[in-house]
């Protein structure tokens, strides 16, 4: 019998998922607080104790692998030239690699922006700019200034290929921790995600987890192999696409509402229609967006900021609450869990706002252009109207008494004809909170990971 243990070192919880590969089933799951501030192993041991208690006795594992978003996750700065092009391309690559993009800069950067990179304790910088053969002046300026300012954190250069040699010289000249990679946007509006994403992942594993005290766990387990959001994206892709004779679910959206961020993943092509003209930067088939100002605890104040004074007063009156005070309470105690029906009611409301707003920013838009042949449509971003399933994960959704109403906020409830939101999806929930674990298992046994997901990710 071969058992695998899959671990997700999250920002708050260390989550364990034990798998029996022969029975093709989950044996048990368990969790405990993440203790990366002291010793990451302590929380892991406690979680393991709980797991064995649930199982009834300790068991052996053939493989123990982990993903991590502990100690602030992977914090990146994305630098490009033009906002809609290489800046956006760089940002998307970081998000696809499972990073949080804390800083985004365009054109010539300045010293105060570089100071922010230092102050915000950025882990990796992605420096892009220029299509291949295009502008190289800007990336050279930026690399030089970063060098002059004594930046020694890892920098990945993924801009105009024609500037690679000079960039390499700059890295050497200033003794920087630089890496050269294929351009994220080799041609205008064409994206090249994989090389830079793989390099980010590699640097995360080689350097960042060490610096954050996560690597200590490798004295006890086989390896940390992915950033958590990257594991979730991998799982979502597998669940959508299928593997061998095991079919996938087709086009899906995954919504993960956490304490600090709301993550949205869509796995589908940009459009299935032949009557639209799609413009703008090429959209990734597997797309992740992260809203750092939408979350249940640490980022709850961002929800209030996204509302107008009139909306706040309307909510207070209609729901008979003081929403600003409720949000402040949650921000002050980020580990708090709902204690009563009132708390649950507020959390439900906040989650619904997060879901609505996060989809508003993730989804594509469409506009009509008239011709004698009838209408022509101009689309930017992804068309999610035909999405088959919207899948919820994360504590607030899993524990909600009204999951469907959170997930329904991703659809076109306000009948806005310009937003290409899912029209009539089915709603599923990652009830056992296993998506990240299945992204890990995919690296070892995709077939099994898919079968387990199909069993445990269930309709509401």
């Amino acid at each position, binding site marked *: 019998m071969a058992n695998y243990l899959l671990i997700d070192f999250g920002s708050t919880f260390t989550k364990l998922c034990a798998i029996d590969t022969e029975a093709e089933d989950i044996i048990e799951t368990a969790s405990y607080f993440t203790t990366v501030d002291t010793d990451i192993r302590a929380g892991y041991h406690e979680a393991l104790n709980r797991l064995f208690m649930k199982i009834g006795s300790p068991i052996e594992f053939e493989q123990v692998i982990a993903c991590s978003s502990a100690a602030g996750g992977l914090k990146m700065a994305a630098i490009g*030239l*033009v906002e*809609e*092009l*290489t800046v956006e391309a760089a940002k998307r690559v970081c998000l696809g690699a499972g990073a949080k993009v804390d800083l985004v800069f365009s*054109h010539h950067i300045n010293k105060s922006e570089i100071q922010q990179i230092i102050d915000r304790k950025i882990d990796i910088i992605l420096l892009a*700019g*220029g*299509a291949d*053969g*295009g*502008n*190289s*002046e800007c990336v050279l300026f930026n690399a030089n200034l970063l060098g002059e300012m004594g930046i020694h954190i890892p920098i990945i250069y993924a801009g105009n290929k024609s500037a690679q040699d000079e960039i390499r010289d700059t890295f050497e000249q200033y003794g920087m921790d630089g890496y050269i990679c294929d351009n994220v*946007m080799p*041609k*205008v*509006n064409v994206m090249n995600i994989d090389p830079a994403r793989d390099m980010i992942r590699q640097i995360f594993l080689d350097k960042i987890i060490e610096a954050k005290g996560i690597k200590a766990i490798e004295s006890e387990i086989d390896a940390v192999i992915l950033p958590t959001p990257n594991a979730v994206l991998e799982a979502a892709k597998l669940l959508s696409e299928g593997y061998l004779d095991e079919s996938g679910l087709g086009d899906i959206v995954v919504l993960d509402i956490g304490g600090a961020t709301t993550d949205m993943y869509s796995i589908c092509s940009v459009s299935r229609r032949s009557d639209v*003209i799609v*413009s703008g930067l090429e959209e990734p088939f597997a797309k992740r967006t992260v809203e750092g100002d939408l979350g249940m605890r640490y980022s709850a104040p961002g929800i209030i900021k996204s509302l107008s004074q009139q909306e706040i007063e309307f909510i207070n009156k209609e729901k008979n609450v003081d929403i600003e005070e409720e949000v402040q309470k949650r921000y002050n105690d980020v580990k708090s869990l709902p204690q009563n029906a009132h708390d649950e009611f507020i959390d439900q409301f906040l989650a619904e706002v997060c879901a609505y707003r996060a989809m508003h920013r993730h989804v594509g838009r469409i506009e009509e*252009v008239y*011709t004698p042949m009838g209408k*022509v449509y*101009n689309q930017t971003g992804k068309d999610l109207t035909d999405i088959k399933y919207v899948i919820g994960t994360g504590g607030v959704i899993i524990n909600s008494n009204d999951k469907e109403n959170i997930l329904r906020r991703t659809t076109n409830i306000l009948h806005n004809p310009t937003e290409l939101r899912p029209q009539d999806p089915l709603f599923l929930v990652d009830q056992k909170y296993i998506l990240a674990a299945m992204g890990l298992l995919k690296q070892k046994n995709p077939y099994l990971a898919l079968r387990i997901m199909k069993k445990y990710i269930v309709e509401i």
Partner: protein
Amino acid sequence: MKTIVIGVIGADVHAVGNKIIEFTLSNAGYHVVNIGVLSSQEDFINAAIETAADLILVSSLYGHGEIDCRGMREKCIEAGIADICLYVGGNIVVGKQDFSEVKTRFLEMGFNRVYPPGTPIDDALKDIREDLGE
């Protein structure tokens, strides 16, 4: 190799001429960045910045060229490509207006070359050579 950004501006969907222009200019030895139909001024300018282009060649076929092109030179100046060459052609205004007046208006808007309806792109090649070389 000199780089030319081409596209059809505004809400204009006339796609055929755009393909011919791409073909002709590529054959003439230019690096052509084609941003296609339904392109805004910003789309042209952004592509020109990223590709360090030497010329932006705007097509407008449906008659609203004047509205669509207004302010484009100013935006180029703001975006740091003040000296880039701007061409416009196609059917840039509605109907049969006196073209010399139309041309003056577009020159005042900061376009370097303005072409009347029916000008084949081959006719413009001579000007491109003169302005860019190669």
